[in-house]
């Protein structure tokens, strides 16, 4: 892991200028440079450095999974023996149908689950079949489980940092 550092002033301006998206123009970094009043070389250098340092995960398209036909989205949750959660979490994270996998705190007595694995599929049966594969992998280390299907997107904006109201 690379260091965590708040954005410097120029990074902050870059984030605000691009958080809605990269300009759809033949020379997008020139357009950004013009907006920011700097040289395009600086925009490119700083973006490349942020990518290199992990401050940008990647540059590209974010698909809407519903539009691509991934209409079933199940948050599978598991109560996994703490002694084994590290190795098992890694193994589940490697499954190609798991898009996020995290260890999170339990909230007893309401919530006994400490491992979350998000599974996307073209329908519920596919997701449930994938969840069974996870159950097999966890074996006896899993004491309880559930799958929470999403039934509506109530909001989806992503993070917006200040400066644009």
């Amino acid at each position, binding site marked *: 892991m690379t260091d*965590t550092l*708040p*954005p410097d002033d120029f990074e902050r301006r870059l984030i605000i200028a*691009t958080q*809605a*998206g*990269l*300009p*759809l123009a*033949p020379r*997008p970094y020139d357009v950004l440079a013009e907006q920011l009043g700097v040289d395009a070389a600086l925009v*490119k250098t700083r*973006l490349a450095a*942020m*990518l290199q*340092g*992990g*401050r*940008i*995960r*990647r*540059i*590209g*398209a*974010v*698909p*809407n*999974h*519903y*539009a*691509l036909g*991934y*209409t079933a989205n199940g948050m599978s949750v598991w109560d996994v023996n703490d002694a084994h*959660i590290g190795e098992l979490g*890694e193994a*589940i994270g490697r499954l190609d149908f*798991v*898009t*996020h*996998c*995290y*260890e*999170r*705190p339990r*909230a007893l007595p*309401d*919530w006994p689950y400490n491992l*979350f694995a998000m599974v996307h599929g073209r329908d519920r049966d596919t997701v449930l079949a994938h969840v069974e594969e996870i159950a097999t992998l966890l074996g006896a280390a899993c004491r309880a489980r559930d799958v*929470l*299907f*999403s*039934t*509506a997107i*109530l*909001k*989806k*904006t*992503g993070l*917006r940092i*200040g400066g644009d109201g």
Partner: protein
Amino acid sequence: MNAPSSAPSRRPPPAVLDELDRRIINALQGGFPISDEPYREVAGQLGTTEADLLARLQRLLDARVLTRFGPMFQIERLGGRFVLAALAVPEERFDEVAAAVNALPEVAHNYRREHRLNMWFVLATETPDGIAAATARIEAATGLPVFAFPKLREFFVDMRLKA
């Protein structure tokens, strides 16, 4: 320039995509070049023209097949925080509570899920302190306790999906 995506409860039907649209989506979920004419570069690799690629990206954004096209910032590396949180909302109050929760700019995503904890949202803030403040505001606005599930360990995150 990118399509807004904050409309509530909207589930677009699977889009009609041609073969080149699919290749564009699959190829462009990362690795977009940082160069003078990146669209032209990518168009060449995909066997199309810069103008066609730009037009298709605009159409995919307008149709909300893509929610964004650009850099994806790793906000935790930049000092910010993401926290998954949930509420157990009485069914008769669901819409009212959803409106109150969604009104906070710190709420980045919000999903209805089938469980007693039926509202699951992500709080995203520029500083770690912002999370506690947002949680307190939601509890004050709704009168419901917020269950917060900050991540203890990340095993894997990759939202790339095949079109």
